[in-house]
């Protein structure tokens, strides 16, 4: 029997131990291949044909590839080390039989070669299978300008195979270098020597709490300066988290253990004693999982909520899908309106609303008391206004399902709106003023402010974001005093299925008359563009998050399964002295619960503070989005926990006395 035979037999016999390692590797290979296959697709590589977003997608995926590789290095290194550590006893036996260190190394390398080759092959096959699906998804999500034809790139196949075989083998050689067999007695004891009572240092335990507290405090009070304080915050929180798992967790469990009332109660005595060791042994993994979790949670919540708030913002500022403004009412050739309607009809978009509103222009003439804001990046326009009559407003308000208003003469109601880089929170601007003084056509008028709402009934533009609504009589007088050149006619359209009308809008934009007095405004192209880009980030982000998530979960699962092998006889002897299966179940449930959910709790708390800080910056309340993302995350985590626990218990149940 050769070494290779032993290795092969060993894998067959230890299927359970390898299966998670194998599955995770397969998954990583699969995702890597799918991305690579997209990047090397002939259409994608011919950059121009896909449009800018295709290029963006391809670049993002290259970044992801690098990320996946870095992550695989960590994951594989960790898995192989744990795996080897759990098998020291086996190596001790092999050296007793006279195998040299070199032979044992070769044996491990064979073993790993078999597992990694199989996972690369299955990963590739699955990757090829799911590539088609992925291409379809990308095309749909991005409304890509050209359909990506499905091909299998030989280059992608070769790169995937070479990268992973090199990576797996390189790492396994590196790790096996750490196998020492100078002390067979130690090796034979295997994990038994590792069970030293874990120690903690008081200063580091205190540091864990203090550092995290400092990090959180800075995050909360930084406000808009978060860009400057971000790195100190990260430094404090990450260091604090590290100590939290390596020191504080041991400290707290040891403290609980010292309480006899708690310790001497049922299965606690075993749960607590084991969890102390388990926490210490797994501290680094739990730390990494928590940080990765926090990053994933924060990133997805941020992308998702940014998307949502930009969407909200665009819709708020543009109640109409398409609008025209004619400066100098009735003085211009407005045949463009009919042409636009014709184009829309030709493209199959029915008109839902068609509105026409007479507007005047005004400028602020008084001292305004503008509500100050925490955010220094804000710079709202509070000087320029359109004037509209209240009956026009109410007509449109009805159409857009907003509340009607009534205004006496001399009163004004303002629709304010503020452009901002990110979807910053909208605040009422003028509400602190009792009177607004407006200069209209050279004359100054003072109006009593009756109210303000954010967002109005006509599309805003860069020059004037605010609309002042006044009583019809006041409006008539003003119109009568304004020459036609200064009057503005606003034409607004809402169309069916506007999110898919980019082509029609492009066509309209291409035939706009060369007249400075006719202005065209639409929200469709910006909206679709932003939504697609964000969806792309979300899609790829979700993909990578899931990958991280499964891989980190696998690390925990993997560790649990290696430990269960070591604990096997403990469970057997517990069973012998009369521990019921229910009680063992309790122990296992509690332990796996802590191991699985402690990282989640830490990740969640970290992200909460990150989100609070980001909320300060974005000025928006993104709690709801964050909670949604966190809930999804929790759901997956729970599924994983249940799965791991079930497998674990199944294993325990199978132990014969």
């Amino acid at each position: 029997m050769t070494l290779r035979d032993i290795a092969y037999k060993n894998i067959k016999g230890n299927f359970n131990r390898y299966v998670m390692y194998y599955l995770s590797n397969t998954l990583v290979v699969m995702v890597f291949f799918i991305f690579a296959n997209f990047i090397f697709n002939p259409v994608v590589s011919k950059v121009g044909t896909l449009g800018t977003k295709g290029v963006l997608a391809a670049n993002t995926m290259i970044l992801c590839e690098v990320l996946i590789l870095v992550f695989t290095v960590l994951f594989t290194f960790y898995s192989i080390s744990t795996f080897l550590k759990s098998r020291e006893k086996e190596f001790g036996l092999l050296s007793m039989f006279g195998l040299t260190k070199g032979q044992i190394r070769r044996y491990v390398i064979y073993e790993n070669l078999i597992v990694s080759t199989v996972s690369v092959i299955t990963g590739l096959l699955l990757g090829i299978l799911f590539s088609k699906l992925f291409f379809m998804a990308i095309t749909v999500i991005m409304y890509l300008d050209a359909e990506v034809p499905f091909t299998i790139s030989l280059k992608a196949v070769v790169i995937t195979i070479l990268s992973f075989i090199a990576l797996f083998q390189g790492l396994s050689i590196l790790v096996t270098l750490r196998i020492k067999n100078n002390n067979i007695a130690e090796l034979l004891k295997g994990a038994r020597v590792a069970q030293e009572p874990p120690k903690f240092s008081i200063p580091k335990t205190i540091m864990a709490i203090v550092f995290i507290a400092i990090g959180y405090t800075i995050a909360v009070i930084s406000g808009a300066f978060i860009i400057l304080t971000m790195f100190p915050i990260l430094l404090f929180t990450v260091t604090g988290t590290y100590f939290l798992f390596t020191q504080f967790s041991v400290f707290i469990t040891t403290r609980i253990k010292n309480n006899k009332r708690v310790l001497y109660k049922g299965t606690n005595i075993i749960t607590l004693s084991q969890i102390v060791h388990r926490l210490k042994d797994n501290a680094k993994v739990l730390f990494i999982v928590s940080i990765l979790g926090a990053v994933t949670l924060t990133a997805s919540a941020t992308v998702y909520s940014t998307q949502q708030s930009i969407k909200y913002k665009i819709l708020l500022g543009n109640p109409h899908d398409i609008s025209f403004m004619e400066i100098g009412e009735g003085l211009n050739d407005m045949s463009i309106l009919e042409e636009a309607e014709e184009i829309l009809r030709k493209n199959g978009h029915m008109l839902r609303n068609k509105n026409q509103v007479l507007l005047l222009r005004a400028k602020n003439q008084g001292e305004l008391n503008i509500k100050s804001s925490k955010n220094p990046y804000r710079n709202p326009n509070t000087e320029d206004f359109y004037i509209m009559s209240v009956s026009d407003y109410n007509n449109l308000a009805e159409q857009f399902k907003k509340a009607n208003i009534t205004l006496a003469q001399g009163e004004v109601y303002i629709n304010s709106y503020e452009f901002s880089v990110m979807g910053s929170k909208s605040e009422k601007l003028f509400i602190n003023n009792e009177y607004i003084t407006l200069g209209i056509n050279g004359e100054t008028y003072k109006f009593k402010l009756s109210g303000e709402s954010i967002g109005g009934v006509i599309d805003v533009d860069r020059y004037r974001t605010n609309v002042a609504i006044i009583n019809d009589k006041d409006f008539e007088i003003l119109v009568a005093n304004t020459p036609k050149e200064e009057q503005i006619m606003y034409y607004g359209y809402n169309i069916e299925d506007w999110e898919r009308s980019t082509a029609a809008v492009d066509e309209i934009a291409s035939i706009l008359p060369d007249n400075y007095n006719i202005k065209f405004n639409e929200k469709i192209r910006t909206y679709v563009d932003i939504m697609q880009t964000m969806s792309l980030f979300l899609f790829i982000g979700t993909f990578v998050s899931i990958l991280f998530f499964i891989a980190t979960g696998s690390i925990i699962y993997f560790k649990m399964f290696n430990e269960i092998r070591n604990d096997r006889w403990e469970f057997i002897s517990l069973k012998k002295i009369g521990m019921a299966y229910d009680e063992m179940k309790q122990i296992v449930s509690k332990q796996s619960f802590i191991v699985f959910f402690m990282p989640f709790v830490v990740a969640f708390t970290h992200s909460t503070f990150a989100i609070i800080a980001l909320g300060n910056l974005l000025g928006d309340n993104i709690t709801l989005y964050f909670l949604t993302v966190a809930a999804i995350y929790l759901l997956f985590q729970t599924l994983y926990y249940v799965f791991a626990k079930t497998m674990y218990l199944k294993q325990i149940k199978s132990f014969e006395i």
Partner: protein
Amino acid sequence: MSVLKAENITKIYGGKKGAMKVKALDNFSITIENREFVGVMGPSGSGKTTLLNILATIDTPSSGELYINGINPMKLDEKHTALFRRRNLGFIFQDYNLLDTLSLKENIILPLALEKVDPKTIEDKVKDMAEILNINDILNKKPYEVSGGQQQRAAIARALIHNPSIILADEPTGNLDSKASQEVMESLKSLNEERNATIMMVTHDPFAASFCHRIVMIKDGKFFLEIVKGGSRHAFFKDILDSLSLLGGNYNDIA
């Protein structure tokens, strides 16, 4: 009433789909009275461990009846069997089976903790047990930090701390040298005499067996003969050696 009564226990292994049938126990009966210290001996493969596992309720016989304190544990479900075992039986194993993550003390109190006995009582009992077994000084050490004999004495403390009706020991001295064996056997003897513990022990070692009140010999799963201690331990040791040579097998070379 006897503490333990096993009647016509038969255990057949295998027999499914071509596997060779092995009759590990063949109509074996044994009765153990309160405060007795009984040894079970027999050649390798004669069915000693099988018998002990059945008495310990961790294995079920193919036929036969078992009563411990008048209760038939085979009639209980999994959970209640476990509870029954934990309350009525104490175990001592050849390889100690102490949990490495727990200190000796924590290992010892395990049966009481599982029963949620209050901490004060637990402390008193541990003290008492440690006194008898002379492991006071090492109570806070972990199993791998002490010798095999010390581990076994801790295991004995664990087996006895909840005052079980009977202690079942499978080759408790199997892994120990003669000095440690003697210490362990002395401990069992004093527990039997001073604490009225009822003990049944499987052993290969005639020296360990000489601490018992009576020895039941088993061969090929059947009752072979029984010898009862008459006079001194030394005389009993000689009796045991003689009977073992009758038993044949690998005992011949010891005698």
